[in-house]
């Protein structure tokens, strides 16, 4: 973190081409890491690369991808949500109880929880609070609520949700279609619409945005609401797969989602995020954590370590590429 050398500006065209190549490589890094993990799986167990195999391996990737997208929205606004994991757990508990037994109340609770996220965004902006601490506190709130809603593991997913999550479309496995859909929808919304640009701008240069007449309060509220929305989707998708809930079911998602955003090429500050990258990052983590290790006959003890190692390797690769970029 010492002072960065100042770019002198003028460069030859060869150097500029090299820089462009490095930038392209950097943009492709998330896809490359996913391809690498897939190749490793294909090499270790060719049978896994099939319709059925992908369905099985990528099943849990959908909720992880949704949670990663949720985390990406707050990161785009230079904040961090350390409560997304317990929030996903809370949503899961509501989905497996209220949403099945009294759908109307269930929907109201879930909408209300998105409203809480919107309020948090407003609170963090108005009182200038550190989002890390506020969301860390909120993680207790969600976990407490989850335990109150569902004191013991159980409940049952609504049938329509089970039906959606066990769709078997022809040729392409459902998780892959879902991942593509999530990535493209969010990519269009955040990267291609004008308000999406404003939202990213609120992380990139808040002062400029304010001077241009935009309300930073509303951008923050919008970003946090979107996080709440995708958190709700993630919790529902998770329960659609596991069929029943547990108050601790989403706890691991906080760290996974942050790792996914960073793996996908997101930066912590400056509104530099990539929705498609985030989805790819989530898929990479989902594949590397469990199927790859199982095929390599590595005990499940090291699953978490695999996530850490991938994160470090990809970040190291990024540093090597960035060095060329200069």
């Amino acid at each position, binding site marked *: 973190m010492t002072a960065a050398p100042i770019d002198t500006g003028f460069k030859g065209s060869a150097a500029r081409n090299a820089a462009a190549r490095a930038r392209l490589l950097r943009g492709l890094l998330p896809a490359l890491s996913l391809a690498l993990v897939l190749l490793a799986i294909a090499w270790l167990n060719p049978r896994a690369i099939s319709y059925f195999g992908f369905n099985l391996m990528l099943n849990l990737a959908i909720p992880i991808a949704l949670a990663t997208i949720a985390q990406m929205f707050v990161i785009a606004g230079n904040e961090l949500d350390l409560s997304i994991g317990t929030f996903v757990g809370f949503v899961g508990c509501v989905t497996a109880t209220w949403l099945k037994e009294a759908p109307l109340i269930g929907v109201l609770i879930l909408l209300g929880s998105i409203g809480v996220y919107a309020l948090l965004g407003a609170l963090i902006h108005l009182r200038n609070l550190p989002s890390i601490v506020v969301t860390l*506190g909120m993680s207790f709130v969600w976990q407490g609520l*989850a335990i109150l809603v569902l004191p013991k593991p159980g409940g049952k997913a609504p049938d329509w949700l089970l039906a959606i999550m066990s769709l078997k479309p022809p040729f392409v496995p459902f998780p892959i279609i879902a991942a593509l859909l999530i990535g493209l929808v969010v990519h269009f919304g955040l990267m291609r619409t004008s308000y999406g640009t404003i939202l990213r701008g609120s992380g990139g240069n808040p002062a400029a945005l304010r001077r241009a007449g935009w309300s930073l309060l509303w951008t923050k509220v919008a970003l946090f609401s979107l996080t709440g929305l995708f958190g709700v989707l993630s919790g529902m998708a998770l329960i659609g797969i596991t069929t029943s809930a547990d108050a601790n079911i989403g706890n691991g998602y906080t760290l996974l989602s942050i790792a996914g955003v960073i793996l996908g090429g997101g930066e912590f500050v400056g509104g530099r995020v990539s929705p498609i990258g985030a989805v790819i990052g989530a898929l990479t983590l989902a594949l590397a954590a469990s199927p790859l290790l199982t095929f390599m006959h590595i005990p499940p003890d090291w699953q978490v370590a695999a996530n850490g190692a991938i994160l470090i390797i990809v970040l190291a690769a990024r540093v090597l590429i960035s060095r060329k970029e200069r």
Partner: protein
Amino acid sequence: MASLKALVTKPWIWSFVGALLVWLVTIAFTGGYGAGGMVTAALSLAVFTVIVGVGQMFVITLGPGNVDLSLPANIGLASAVAMKVMGGSDSMIVVGLLAALACGAAIGAINYLLIWALRIPPIIATLSASFIIQSVDISFGRGLQIKPPPGFADFTNWQIFGVPVLAMLTVLFTIGAAIALRRMIYGRSVLAIGQNIRAAWLAGVNVGRVRFLTYTLSGALGGIDGALLAGYFRGANVDIGNEYLLASIAVVVIGGTSVAGGKANVPGVWGAALFLVLLLTMLNTFGVSAGVRLLLTGLIIVGVITAAGGEKAVR
């Protein structure tokens, strides 16, 4: 009046006021029963939060984005290392403590190595490190059923006139930390880096070395904490450090240290740690269920942070 006003403006005073308030409410509820015992218990438990809180405080003071997320994993691994090295025999206590210290310091050093070599935000570096440490701990500490040596377990529970000896030692340690922060070049450098890293660098502060020392210190304190926790709770455990992620950050912030860096507060760490422990005691005394307890803890933390307000966003 003037001195009272000066006291009120001190950021750390509120954490002590909060702790006192929670204590009073609880003894009002019990009708005065167990008032002293509660203080003793709060002191013994607060010690563990204070030790990691001080480490986290130095890290957070380095500036926006600096935070050690690897503390829980670090504590878990160090508790296992300490118990294994001590092997239940009194003669190995010092060696075990040193091993835990070295284990923690090594984790801290690795954290900084990742930050420095990969030029990544400390949150991600300590996060990736904690993933790996957690796995090492699960693999290393599996089925570890070693009890702490009786002498060590007694030491961590030792009280003189109702005051835990560990708490007294920790008070001495925090006084030392306060002196280091206010009067020593190291502490001044940490504050300078937190206020403006570029200015500190231009002023000749060895930024790299100070940051390295700070992360190593935080790691080492996590290691010692793990060993002490294993002594106090009679055994190592993978999950023994889990609650210290929130606790270490919360005590720093509630205690009046600026999350934006450059402004630290040692007494506040004690006040906030006592506040958090007494809060839990209060909710337990009220006999609320686990769900309500978590809910209220979270709401109170968010409420306290909101009331305290922030001067500058953390990131």
